[in-house]
């Protein structure tokens, strides 16, 4: 059994940690590129959402590199993601690949299945597997810290390419590291390198929050590196959802008898009181939270035809008015042109800058 799993931002680092700790052979799909997307969308239904196409491309590449078992988390509604696995399996089989899918549905759907899958994956060492998952969670915490350093440093330094270099090397080093312990060391070392970059402490960058559909805000390929782009334009960004944030709310908290997404649900309640699927409540909750924290603007990113985020977007138009915060809406799919994308981001940042300046002026007089 040679395992592989789809890419979603930095998730591979944590998942690799789990399998390393358990001594299970796994293949990390080659990093997502245009070619991955092309491979995936050729076999996908035309109107399906972007994450489906990209992850399918990931699988094809991994299988060609020797993987025979695909592990993903599942869910049972209400969004399409819950049915990705079965259909992707069908497609891969129709293409002539003989692969096995292990779909780990959330424990609440069927606790026995969940344990069974964990057991199957870990060769019966269930308790060790659970410990590894917890260790991987610690990796996620470190990844978030690293990202936050990057968000802080990028707008404040003149030399953006140093950051890119460090992060490029990080990807290599982390792949060479073995097990969660070594991985955490690499992450920490990288963080220190970033912190040693000279910065201008007096810059007061714009603050931009990134909200939207979870996959497309976490996976940089799918959003055309929006974080890097905005950072280079001098904005300090914050991403509302991360792998750690997901694991905390979906695994750690439920496992210890707490409910996840408390803040998001509380804040979004006046606008959308129930779960409708996807992360609408989270999107709205974070938007309000950022507004309360005096962010200068928000960027909502979602794949074309994404059902829950289409609902979010209609609500966000009201949040813009109620909280007086500008929002840029970015819909991503395989046709997004890079030039137009960059222009829209630049125009938005310029607009925010001017707005902030005018505010200051009016405060003075």
């Amino acid at each position: 059994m040679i395992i592989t799993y789809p890419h979603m931002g930095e998730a591979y680092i944590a998942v690799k940690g789990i399998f390393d700790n358990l001594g299970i052979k796994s293949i990390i799909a080659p990093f997502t590129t245009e070619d991955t997307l092309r491979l995936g969308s050729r076999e996908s239904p035309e109107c399906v959402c972007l994450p489906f196409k990209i992850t399918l491309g990931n699988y094809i590449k991994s299988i060609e590199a020797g993987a025979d078992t695909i592990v993903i988390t599942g869910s049972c509604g209400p969004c399409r993601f819950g049915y990705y696995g079965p259909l992707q399996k069908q497609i891969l089989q129709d293409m002539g690949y003989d692969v096995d899918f292990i779909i780990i549905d959330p424990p609440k759907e069927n606790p026995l299945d969940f344990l069974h899958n964990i057991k199957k994956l870990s060769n019966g060492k269930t308790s060790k597997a659970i410990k590894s998952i917890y260790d991987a969670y610690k990796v996620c915490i470190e990844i978030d810290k690293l990202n936050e350093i990057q968000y802080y440093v990028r707008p404040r330094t003149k030399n953006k390419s140093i950051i890119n270099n460090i992060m490029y090397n990080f990807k290599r080093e982390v792949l060479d590291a073995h097990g969660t312990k070594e991985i955490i060391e690499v992450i920490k070392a990288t963080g220190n390198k970033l912190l040693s970059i000279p910065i201008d402490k007096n810059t007061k960058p714009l603050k931009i929050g990134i909200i939207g559909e979870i996959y497309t805000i976490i996976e940089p390929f799918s959003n055309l590196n929006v974080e890097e782009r905005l950072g280079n334009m001098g904005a300090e960004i914050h991403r509302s959802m991360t792998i750690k944030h997901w694991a905390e709310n979906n695994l750690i908290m439920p496992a210890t008898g707490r409910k996840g997404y408390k803040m998001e649900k509380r804040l979004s309640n006046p606008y959308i009181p129930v779960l409708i699927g996807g992360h609408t409540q989270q999107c709205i909750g974070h938007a309000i939270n950022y507004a309360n924290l005096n962010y200068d603007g928000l960027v909502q990113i979602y794949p074309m035809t994404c059902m829950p985020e289409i609902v979010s977007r209609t609500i966000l138009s009201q949040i813009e008015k109620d909280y007086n915060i500008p929002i840029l809406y970015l819909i991503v799919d395989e046709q997004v042109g890079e030039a137009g994308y960059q222009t829209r981001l630049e125009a938005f940042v310029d607009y925010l800058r001017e707005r902030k300046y005018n505010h200051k002026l009016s405060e003075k007089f």
Partner: protein
Amino acid sequence: MKRIGIPRGLYYYKYYPFAKIFLTELGAEVVLSPETNKEILDIGSKYCIDDACLPVKVYHGHVYFLKDKVDYVLIPRFTSISAKEYICPKFGGLPEMVRYSIPMNSPIIDIEINLYKNKFNLYKSLFSLGNMLGANPIQIKKAINKAFKTHYVYKKDLLNGNLPAVLIENKKPVKIKTKSIVGIVSHPYLLYDSFINMNLLKKLSGRCIKYITPEMIDSQIIDNLCNELEKRIFWSSSKELIGSALYMMNINRIEGILLLTSFACGIDSLSLELIIRIANKIYNKPIMMLTLDEHTGEANFNTRLEAFMDLVERRQNLDNNLSPYGRGIYCSERNIR
């Protein structure tokens, strides 16, 4: 007397008889928006967010028509219509989508219909609506019972092959000389809205083609067929389509299948793909997908539809020519083809 508007879109085709009886029993007057027309579609597309699907845009148009003409507009939040299943995220967020897109004075009644866990939630919602109309619990209970009764009769009538237009709108059923039968796999709001689907049903009847729709198939059969799939389908809307398609593929006298979908429908992008992939393996009759959006040209649509009908007819003629020789002499139908 309170005037309550019901938009003629989305699950109107499933639940209008229920809603109408319930509301009128409690002394409200029900106002229905007109059949979908160009104006409604245009207004809907104007106000609704651009990347939504066609039926949701049309729904916005219907709400726009009703707003300010009634005391309330009924836009239930359909979270779930059967146990452990959802419908589509847009159904769950429908009241919000409308509220933040259309400026309106008439308040929205957005009671939640949620049968995910049990029926209790539905009763709670109906009681709160009844309360709002000033009825007492006994009256409400009576109205609920009556509404359910009507609903079951309506469902049964649909199952027996009647169309919503005949049952709700008292239109005359079309009697045709049937040459062949096809199956149509689609959501009711595409299938029964003759403006959205450019008179699809009439066009089929015009060529003496009878059709079977998901509403004409027993839900137990649909459930059973879907249970054979690897993973349970957790959207009722999708389950209906996949189950119906599987059923239609297995029925000999059904000569072909039409898949009717809306551009940008998230649910269909997965379920229809699954159907087509299954059909590729086990089905050797015509199957065609027709996609609707607000820019679909009727000429284009007709060409595709006609191609489908031609295919169906040609097969039919072929069978008629051959069958007298085939049956009895050669053992199975398959040999003839």
